[in-house]
């Protein structure tokens, strides 16, 4: 089992009013699953994503990632876990604007403390995988939206994470480019990666094999789809 949530709750203290973002969420995701997490805004979907991505910890309940109880980790341990096991793809790409493609992709490996030669090799491989080998020295502002998202995907892949966590990865792209990006995810899945998509768009969610719907901090439905996609 790659990750498992057991009755995870998250309560935010907003001006001393307790806001229950998650109210007992439990599910498991196995290796090489392709999961879409869906829900309207305010459903707790983003909170769930932050917890799965180890950017935040549950108020109560257990989150096991590769068997480790991540909920008890301090911030630096969480940073390590994010570095080793999570690959993020954000809606707004979140690339370093002043750094070129190579440096952006290399960055997680720097924080992993890897030697420069090894870094170069892995980063170049990842960039080649998303088809940007000829854009290595370009800066993000010299790239199209689709290309930027590919750079972000390369960065998320470079440390060979346990899960790829994509938050509305096509949200800032036109539909054609969005479709191209989704093809990249489909390919990555077929190559054995575990992918979690957070989205509110049905046609994006349809790429996944499993759909977890969140509403009001609870799981509304958890359906494994037929191999339609």
């Amino acid at each position, binding site marked *: 089992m790659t990750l498992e949530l057991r009755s995870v709750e998250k309560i935010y203290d907003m001006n001393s009013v307790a806001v229950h973002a998650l109210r007992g969420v439990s599910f498991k995701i196995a290796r090489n699953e392709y999961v879409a997490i869906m829900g309207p805004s305010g459903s707790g979907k983003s909170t769930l994503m932050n917890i799965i991505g180890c950017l935040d910890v549950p108020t109560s309940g257990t989150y096991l990632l590769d068997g480790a109880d991540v909920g008890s980790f301090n911030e630096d341990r969480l940073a390590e876990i994010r570095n080793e096991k999570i690959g993020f793809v954000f809606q707004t790409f979140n690339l370093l604007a*002043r750094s070129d493609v190579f440096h952006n992709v290399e960055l997680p490996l720097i*924080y992993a403390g890897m*030697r420069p030669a090894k870094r170069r090799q892995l980063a170049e491989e990842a960039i080649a995988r998303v088809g940007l080998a000829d854009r290595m020295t370009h800066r993000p502002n010299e790239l199209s939206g689709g290309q930027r998202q590919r750079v972000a995907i390369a960065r998320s892949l470079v440390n060979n994470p346990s899960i790829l966590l994509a938050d509305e990865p096509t949200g800032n792209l036109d539909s054609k480019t969005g479709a191209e990006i989704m093809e990249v995810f489909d390919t990555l899945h077929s190559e054995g990666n575990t992918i979690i998509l957070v989205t509110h768009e049905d046609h994006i969610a349809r790429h996944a094999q499993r759909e977890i719907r969140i509403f009001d901090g609870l799981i509304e439905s958890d359906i494994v789809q037929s191999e339609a996609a």
Partner: protein
Amino acid sequence: MSRIHGSVEAFKIAIAALRANTARGVLTTLGIIIGIVAVVTTMTAANGLANNFRESVSVLGTDVLYVSRVPWVIQGRFFQFRNRPNLELKDCDELARLLGSSVVVNPTDDTRRPVKYLSEVIENATIIGTTDKHMLVSSAVPEYGRFLTAYDVRFKRPVCVLGTTMREQLFGDVDPINKNIKIGRAEFRVIGVMEKQGSAGFFGGPDFDSQVFVPVTSFVKEFGSRNRSFAFAVKAPRGTDVTDFEYELAGEMRKIRRLAPGEEDNFAINKMDSLLDAFNNVMGVVLMIGVAVTGISLFVGGVGVMNIMFVSVTERTREIGIRKAIGAKRRAILQQFLLESSMICLVGGAIGVALSFAVAEAIDRFVLPASVSLPIVFIALTVSVVVGVISGFIPAWRASRLHPIDALHYE
């Protein structure tokens, strides 16, 4: 291993960040540059003064004691010395007799008089009455011509020897030997010019190059003996301990002064050391004040850097969020911003040191011999980095404490 790579990377990141904001970096550095120039110049000037002083005082020689009515360095109230009797020339003769022929005793006194050659006038020149023994108690040597002789002294001859500055100012390119000059109202014939000695004039101390030496007898004859107290330069014989000799000297002086046992000395024995001690004390205080005052400008520069680092952290909140999301630990972020601020300051410090060399050059040319020493450069650069680390710490700490989610969503 990973820490070393991390440092190299943090270094690259800092350079990239500085490049991205060159204009702002330069402006920020300005405060540090000014601060470093101020501190380095102060230290260099103080160093120059100290060396200059030591060099010129060393003319006096460590084995020479100076008997005078009032000590050179007065501690306590001045008036307690007021009623001491003068030291007269006959006291000097008696002292020489008591100490024996192996000891050189030379009486001197000085006065201020205008010195005139044709139309050139130097007001307030220092006129020294001395004897042929002057050469034995100081390292002064004539450059050309000759010094005073026993004969000149004995017969009160109206001859004089010029310090090198005096010669320059009065005679320019003209050969001064055997020319007559007027000292006050009396005529003196120039018989020699002294070698350059260097000056402690900057502190109101003696400027050995601006002196005119005349026989002490002529001095008394022309400028009067009333209320005149001489100083006796006494050279310890070779091989005697100077401290022991000082006791002996004090004993003989007490005899001359007819002091009963238990009565306090009514004369003073001075050494170059006491002058140096006094100087070092004063210099230490001056240096401390100087560094404190100039340090304020460095402090202001540091505040500027801190300000810019706060701006930098705020501007790059999102970047910090990204870095944290993909695995940067707090220490990595802290290191990144500390390195950035220390590099700003180091660059400023380096520029400041470079400018200080120019300033020191100017001081050297126009005021007094001074040069920026290597330790001062080292101190300045270290201080720059320390200022960088200190002023960068709070912003960097704040950056490292940002929550990744908040930072990522910062607009």
